[in-house]
């Protein structure tokens, strides 16, 4: 390794700087990063396959646990797809409650990110401040849904819990405090010289590269790309909300900080509008357990960017296929580009700036090697035969078990 002019440093899968297992292999020349190799897949939990073996109602709770921070995003995205297939029109009050929880979740996620970003650049006072304020919104969420994370408020055809007048007043009280504090953060982000000097020019991603690499969410908006599912393809009650899509032209980590902090202010406005305009009426409609055959794609603006769920149903109680594309998967290619020709010390903050969630990202990954001629797709039967042969070679025979299985399958 020392003979070549490049030095390779593995960061992860187990590394103190990373909160989740993911592998970055950095090729260094001195302090400069010459290239990055990102290997995903250490957090694969087989959730998509597990969804196929559970009913739609059970899937809501499983999908919710894809991510701890944006649990409402995933469950709403999944449910929107299921409701589209079933042709359900969700009551308006339920849509408003979904929007309200979604925005509260965005507030908590952005405050969390602000603290993490502060920590990564050694500004721990910001971490203490923003996480203290995050408690306010966490308490509101606990009051509304019963839990601080994994709210479990969605159900097919509406929401599970209603919001009372006293709870609305509590939310407004909390939002007023948060708005005051956020004004201070905007002041810090735009005037504090240490932050500006540390973050400017770090992890630059220009407009064209953003489009080419298909970045989403605040990462894209910080590069001047005006892309927000809430505006472009309104879901839930967003079509009735008045808010701005925040963009910034810096294109670096500083821009991403500014976008997120300013987005907080927009979120407070949406929460206020939700509470003010919330219509009366039922919160849930009854949906049959069997969902008719069909397929749907659902988009949702999670705090980290666009979340996409695809659901295919076959007329039974269980989905045939569920596919999840979390925002981090769209942004991870951009990280590779951002890190190139930067210094090693910038790596933690550049990775943290996309607000990565690797356990969201780790879905099925097929490693394709175009140079290898032996690459081929295996059918289910071929894979089955291969597995039997593999075990036989190791002295385990499943022949009897297979016969029993065949008998049972034929019997049913």
């Amino acid at each position: 390794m020392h003979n070549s002019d490049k030095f390779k440093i593995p960061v992860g899968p187990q590394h103190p700087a990373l909160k989740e297992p993911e592998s970055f292999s950095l090729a260094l020349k001195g302090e400069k990063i010459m290239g990055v190799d990102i290997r995903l897949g250490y957090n694969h939990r087989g959730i998509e396959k597990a969804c196929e073996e559970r009913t739609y109602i059970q899937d809501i709770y499983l999908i919710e646990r894809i991510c701890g921070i944006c649990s409402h995003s995933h469950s709403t995205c999944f449910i929107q797809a299921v409701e589209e297939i079933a042709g359900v029109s969700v009551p308006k009050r339920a849509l408003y409650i979904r929007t309200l929880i979604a925005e509260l979740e965005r507030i908590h996620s952005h405050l969390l990110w602000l603290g993490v970003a502060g920590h990564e650049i050694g500004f721990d006072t910001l971490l203490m401040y923003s996480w203290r304020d995050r408690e306010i919104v966490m308490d509101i969420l606990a009051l509304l849904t019963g839990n601080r994370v994994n709210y479990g408020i969605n159900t097919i055809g509406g929401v599970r819990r209603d919001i009372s007048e006293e709870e609305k007043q509590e939310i407004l009280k909390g939002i007023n405090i948060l708005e005051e504090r956020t004004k201070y953060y905007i002041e810090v982000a735009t005037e504090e010289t240490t932050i500006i000097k540390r973050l400017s020019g770090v992890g630059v991603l220009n407009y064209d590269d953003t489009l080419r690499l298909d970045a989403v969410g605040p990462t894209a908006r910080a590069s001047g790309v005006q892309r927000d599912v809430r505006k472009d393809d309104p879901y839930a009650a967003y079509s009735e909300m008045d808010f701005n899509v925040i963009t910034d032209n810096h294109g670096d980590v500083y821009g991403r900080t500014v976008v997120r902090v300013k987005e907080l202010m927009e979120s407070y406005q949406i929460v206020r509008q939700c509470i003010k305009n919330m219509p009366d009426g039922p919160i849930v409609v009854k949906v049959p357990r069997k969902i008719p055959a069909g397929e749907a794609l659902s988009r949702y603006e999670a705090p980290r960017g666009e979340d996409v769920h695809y659901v295919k149903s076959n007329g039974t109680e269980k989905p045939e296929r569920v596919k999840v594309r979390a925002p981090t998967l769209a942004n991870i290619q951009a990280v590779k580009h951002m890190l190139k020709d930067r210094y090693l010390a910038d790596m933690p903050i550049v990775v943290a700036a996309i607000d990565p969630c690797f356990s969201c990202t780790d879905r099925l990954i097929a490693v394709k090697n175009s140079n290898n001629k032996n690459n081929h797709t295996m059918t289910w039967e071929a894979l089955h035969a291969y597995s039997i042969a593999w075990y036989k070679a190791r002295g385990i025979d499943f022949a009897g078990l297979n016969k029993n299985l065949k008998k049972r399958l034929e019997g049913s």
Partner: protein
Amino acid sequence: MIRQVLYSLFKKPATNLYPAQKLEMPKGYRGKLVFYPEKCIGCKMCMKDCPTGAITINKIAEKKFEAVIDLGKCIYCAQCVDSCIKKALEVTKDVTLAQLDDKKLKVVFGSDSENNRTEKQAP
């Protein structure tokens, strides 16, 4: 900043002395389940909807049911409470469920000969 420092200097600690002082759970908190055997009709909708298979309804006699709840498997989503058409299941605010022995996590809710509710460990 100075105001914040002075405020933090004189305010009471945010932590509380746990076993003596317990935090009040928020309204609508989903904790340990309770089962009312007299209301159950044995439709087993809760078993069907439970995402983790933590609840089992057993028929012990004619029109008499008991529920076996594995508190280690339960994810406290309270879907079974929503699914129950007779409201035989309810959530409590009980959170102190930790056990050193995993057998103690399996709880049987049933009734004795005088139709009083009982709660004991699974054999």
